[in-house]
């Protein structure tokens, strides 16, 4: 039998060209602008979509092949982790609380990212851009699925994981990540790809999925390490896509530059505000720390983001606004956030605690300019109060920033002793902001942000009570009713870690794993 002559395989460049070019056509039944109705209204001018090129030159066939291999590895490890009760090998049950924030707050965003990329994958007129968006859309739904699988495993053993779809819609702090994505998906396709591809992927996910996930590995959580790194390998493609999208817009027409600049300013600030939560997770919620929030920020934002802005300078792009304030704040925001969650611990689906002496010393060494001066005294005071039976809970619902929806807890630029308040008047109403950055964003698009659904304000308006609640009855307890509406189980999911079900169960189970009594 003759051996068939081996055909020469196509190179990567040619394969990419065949699999992304000329897949589209000029429509005849309907005019092109009706088929792609969102392509122009943001003011971005594109002259030649064929100039779009994915630097990975990834084609659908290769996508399936490598992603399938990754998923097989990922699920094998997650299975092994669960078969071996891997959750009992984490450093301390306190650690699980950081995963509650992560899995409840981020998994629904992955799903929204899936929808967002499916949408713009349909709406961009260029085929290569659409192929890249299709892949990202698939990545995002895979991430949502792997994270929900991980969440489901933790939910068998720990509190606070039981109702993430309800919580993301209702719980006060969940509106911070949710409103970030609501803002992005309700923008046009070009702004969406800057908000997610650039801000969320390039600035945010590196900090969440690299140092935090390395921290998960350090704390013995193989499950989270696995889905985290597996997801981040896709994020590497996503940031490359985000960067490519920005360069593409800037190269296509000089009129695009000021529009893109405004989005970079806006979404850097939005992403930075959202990252406050990650800062707190790294500095306070990991029993064993890999690096401080500030160190991670310096590597992934200042060094890495700085390199990107330098690279974009040749297009006339300047670094984002408020960098000076951001640099000053890196000594403060994680401590301010943890102080807030500690005060409002009765209203959360995870537990809080005051740092031990050891941890305070670590924080002093990492934050020599701020921790001992501004935060240690407050934390030591609260710890003493708790020891004397006066655990401090703040019972007044805080005012939220109209833009980022974080309570107004941040301080004035350059003065960490004074709370920062800004406001704008619009159509006869007053709106409040945590910062100049958030006020700027509102002032540019007030019609968008006056529609924000702010959990604290909604509670005061009586829109967040449990089913069948009667606020006029004599013994009505408004906060218990709000927890009911949120799906938070009072006395189980919330409050101090010390004395929690999680703490008791973890110790009992770990005891069972190491002796026979």
């Amino acid at each position, binding site marked *: 039998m003759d051996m068939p002559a081996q055909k020469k395989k196509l*190179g*990567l*460049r040619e394969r990419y060209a065949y699999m992304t070019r000329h897949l589209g056509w000029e429509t005849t039944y309907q005019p092109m602008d009706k088929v792609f109705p969102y392509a122009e209204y943001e003011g971005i001018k594109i002259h030649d979509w064929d100039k779009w090129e994915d*630097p*990975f*030159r*990834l084609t659908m066939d*290769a996508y399936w092949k*490598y*992603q399938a*291999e*990754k998923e097989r*590895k990922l699920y094998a490890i997650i299975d092994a982790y669960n078969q071996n009760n891997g959750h009992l090998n984490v450093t301390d049950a306190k650690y699980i609380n950081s995963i509650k924030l992560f899995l409840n707050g981020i998994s629904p965003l992955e799903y929204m990212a899936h929808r967002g990329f499916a949408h713009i994958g349909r709406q961009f007129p260029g085929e290569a851009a659409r192929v890249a968006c299709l892949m990202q859309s698939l990545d995002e739904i895979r991430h949502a699925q792997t994270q929900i699988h991980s969440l489901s495993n933790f939910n068998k053993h720990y509190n606070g994981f039981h109702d993430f779809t309800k919580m993301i819609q209702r719980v006060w702090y969940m509106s911070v990540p949710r409103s970030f994505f609501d803002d992005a998906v309700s923008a046009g396709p070009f702004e969406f790809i800057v908000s997610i591809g650039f801000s969320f992927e390039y600035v945010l996910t*590196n900090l969440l*999925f*690299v*140092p935090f*996930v*390395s*921290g998960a*590995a*350090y704390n013995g959580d193989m499950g989270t*390490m696995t889905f985290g*790194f597996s997801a*981040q*390998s896709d*994020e*590497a*493609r996503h*940031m*490359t896509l985000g*960067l490519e999208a920005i*360069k593409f817009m800037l190269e296509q027409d000089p009129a695009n530059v000021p529009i893109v600049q405004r989005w970079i300013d806006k979404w850097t600030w939005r992403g930075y505000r959202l990252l406050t939560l990650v800062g707190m997770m790294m500095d306070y919620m990991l029993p064993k720390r*890999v690096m401080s929030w500030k160190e991670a920020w310096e590597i992934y934002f200042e*060094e*890495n983001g*700085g*390199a*990107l802005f*330098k*690279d974009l*300078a*040749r297009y006339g792009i300047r670094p984002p606004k408020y960098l000076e304030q951001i640099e000053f704040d890196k000594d403060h925001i994680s401590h301010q956030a943890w102080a807030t969650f500690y005060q409002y611990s009765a209203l959360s689906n995870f537990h809080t605690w005051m740092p031990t002496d050891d941890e305070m010393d670590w924080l002093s060494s990492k934050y020599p300019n701020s921790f001992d001066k501004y935060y240690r005294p407050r934390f030591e005071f609260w710890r003493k109060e708790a020891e004397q039976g006066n655990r401090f809970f703040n019972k007044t619902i805080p005012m939220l920033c109209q833009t980022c929806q974080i309570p107004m807890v941040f301080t004035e630029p350059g003065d960490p002793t004074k709370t920062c308040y800004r406001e704008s008047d619009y159509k006869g109403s007053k709106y409040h902001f945590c910062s100049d950055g958030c006020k700027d964003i509102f002032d540019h698009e007030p019609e968008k942000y006056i529609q924000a659904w702010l959990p604290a304000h909604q509670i005061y308006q009586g829109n967040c009570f449990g089913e069948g609640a009667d606020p006029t009855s004599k013994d009505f307890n408004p906060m218990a009713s709000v927890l009911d509406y949120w799906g938070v189980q009072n006395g189980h999911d919330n409050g101090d870690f010390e004395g929690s079900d999680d703490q008791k169960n973890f110790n009992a189970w770990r005891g069972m794993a190491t002796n026979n009594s």
Partner: protein
Amino acid sequence: MSIVFLALQANDETRPIIESIMADNPHAQLNESPAMVKIDAEGSLTVKRESVEERIGRPFNLQELQINLISLSGNLDETDDEFTLKWNA
């Protein structure tokens, strides 16, 4: 010049890849963290297919990097033979 980086999982599959990157990019710095490595390099960093193949003793497709890649920074250019990250400024 700014720093580019490539972050990879630290496992059996990446060991020869990391080794070949460090051999091909003498200006690169290897930073080891729990479960991962981050390779920093001023200006640019290149992964060469041939160097990886020499170490693993089988054909290697650079797209296999996807499996163990964690993150990267810089402008990327990927061909059949080389995977290059670089900053233009």
